[in-house]
């Protein structure tokens, strides 16, 4: 049993999805509890795997007993294990959160929603755990197809936004597959570690370089790095609440993880930073992504749309951090994958709750929100502080590592972009909190004699609990930063970095 944990992480949600399809025919009401149970099993397996990794190093699981480069290998090291725990935790929280919003927004599609939801999580977890380049493509497409369907359930322009995402997502996935094909021609292998051991002998090959270009272009489209970010804001804004809570934190972060895998497991830090000279170009992309994301976020009136632009900026953080070529920068990137996943889900849940109560989420709907929804707004403050980067939340520590990494490699433009982005985030969240706190005009100041009471209408408990778990996780992760970095992140940093 104990050595089966890695595969259980993926298998449990996969079979849960099948059961959900059947259960949905007979009794849609059981779908949400079943999904929660399945995702809980997956989360516990991920935690068990993480403790095993921290005790005994890399776990290599052979699917079907086939030996690794021939069969598919599940390979778990500290990097995967952390991302797996983050993905399964976020999925579990959103599954609990989703109950009320899904009942309200997608009344007759409940069973379809949860089936696709759990399948999407299967795809994401599989992408994270697999050590096989082609298996990754298949799971990438599973995650992509289910997310198209989930996003298209939204309102208004959702169909058109999703169609654009289908087109761009397919281009991205096909570029990735083309890159894998080129590597297959050169190395004859699909196992990432195996390819990584063969590639140093082919350091001068043009094919290997072009394969790297296609692989990077593919994952950059998938993660919406500037200038490939066009599809993201529309697709996520018009999606149903529960969908955007799941897709927004996870899809892009898992793509960043894949980029790290390709860069440091398949290729090597030495090849990327010494043989090819792409670093300046990618750093410019990252800086522009951060600045564009921040400024577009500043221009939005709709809070959900504003957050989607912040995601574009956060992608810039992670890509830039990985491409600084320093251990501190890469530590910051790995740490930020976790931190950003948690804070994005926290903020999207807050916005989801406001939408649930007030119908939409613009500045108007935040008026007096502090009186009517005190718990929700407190979670917003914690998430906002983390987004700005105030200690002791984890947002501060990831920025700290990213900035010190950029300082070591003298990427001053990146540091300036990070600081500007923090300032913009501060303005954005102060604007929301100000509206929520002090929106009453002088004439509306409550007169102690009159009974001007704002109705207390906080989110339901089933929405508040996951929201607060993610908010407290932000603080807990910040407090245990040293532990996380020394125990899991440092052992997996590749050689050849500054």
């Amino acid at each position, binding site marked *: 049993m104990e050595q089966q944990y890695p595969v259980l992480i993926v298998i449990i949600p996969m079979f849960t999805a099948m059961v959900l399809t059947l259960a949905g025919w007979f009794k849609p009401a059981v779908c949400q509890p079943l999904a929660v149970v399945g995702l809980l099993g997956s989360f516990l397996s991920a935690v068990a795997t993480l403790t095993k990794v921290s005790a005994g190093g890399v776990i290599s699981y052979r699917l079907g007993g086939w030996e690794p480069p021939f069969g598919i290998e599940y390979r778990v090291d500290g990097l995967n294990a952390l991302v797996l725990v983050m993905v399964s935790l976020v999925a579990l929280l959103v599954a609990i959160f989703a109950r009320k919003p899904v009942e309200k927004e997608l009344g007759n599609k409940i069973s379809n929603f949860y089936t696709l939801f759990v399948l999407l999580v299967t795809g994401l977890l599989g992408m994270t755990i697999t050590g096989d380049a*082609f298996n990754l*493509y*298949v799971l990438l*497409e599973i995650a*992509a*197809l289910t997310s*198209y*369907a989930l996003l*298209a359930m939204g309102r208004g*322009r959702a*169909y*058109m936004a*999703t*169609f654009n995402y*289908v*087109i761009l997502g*397919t*281009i991205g996935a*096909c570029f990735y*597959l*083309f890159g894998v*094909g080129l590597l*297959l*021609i050169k190395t004859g292998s*699909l196992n990432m570690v195996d390819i990584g051991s063969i590639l140093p002998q082919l350091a001068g090959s043009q094919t290997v370089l072009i394969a790297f270009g296609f692989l990077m272009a593919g994952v950059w489209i998938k993660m919406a790095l500037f200038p490939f970010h066009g599809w993201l804001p529309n697709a996520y804004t018009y999606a149903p609440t529960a969908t955007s809570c799941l897709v927004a934190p996870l899809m892009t972060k898992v793509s960043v993880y894949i980029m790290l895998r390709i860069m440091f497991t398949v290729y090597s830090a030495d090849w990327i930073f010494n043989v090819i000279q792409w670093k300046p170009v990618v750093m410019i992309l990252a800086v522009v992504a951060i600045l564009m994301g921040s400024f577009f976020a500043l221009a939005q009136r709709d809070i959900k749309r504003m957050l989607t632009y912040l995601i574009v900026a956060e992608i810039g953080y992670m890509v830039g951090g990985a491409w600084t070529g320093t251990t501190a920068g890469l530590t910051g990137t790995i740490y930020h994958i976790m931190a950003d996943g948690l804070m994005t889900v926290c903020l999207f849940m807050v916005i989801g709750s406001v939408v649930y109560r007030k119908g939409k989420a613009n500045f108007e709907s935040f008026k007096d929100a502090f009186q009517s929804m005190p718990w929700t707004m407190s979670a917003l403050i914690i998430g906002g502080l983390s987004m700005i980067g105030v200690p002791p939340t984890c947002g501060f520590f990831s920025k700290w590592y990213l900035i010190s990494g950029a300082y070591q490699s003298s990427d001053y433009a990146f540091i300036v972009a990070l600081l500007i982005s923090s300032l913009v985030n501060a303005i954005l969240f102060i604007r929301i909190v100000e509206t929520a706190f002090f929106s009453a005009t002088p004439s509306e100041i409550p007169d102690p004699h009159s009974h001007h009471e704002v109705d207390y209408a906080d989110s339901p408990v089933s929405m508040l609990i996951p929201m607060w778990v993610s908010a407290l996780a932000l603080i807990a992760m910040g407090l245990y930063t040293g532990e996380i970095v020394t125990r899991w992140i440092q052992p997996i940093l590749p050689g050849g970095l500054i």
Partner: protein
Amino acid sequence: MEWLQINYNYLLVIVLLMIGLWAMIGKNNLVKKCIGMCIFQNAIIMFFISMGAKAGSTIPILNYTKVNGVKTYFTEASMYANPLTQILMLTAIVVGVATLGMALTLVQKIYSEYGTCEEDEILKKIG
């Protein structure tokens, strides 16, 4: 010229990829975009299949010839086409069909909502 005789399949794949990409990005009609997507995916499938193909090779199932009642098995690996790429593309074809189905469903939904498949007209209606 000799290079072209050996590697013309890659040239063909690149031409198909470019046609598909152009249709996906440049075309105004959503159905044409779907067609472009189909061409794009099939170009990659052809790329994989042609990289594993060999002149005069047979399918990778243990096979034999019967000469005067004596069975001779092909045991040389070089007699068979590479089965790996074919297996991979079997999966990729399924993925391609699912993606195309998803895209066409969306086009149908868009058509029933806006009454047109032309992107510029839809954007005008969205306003």
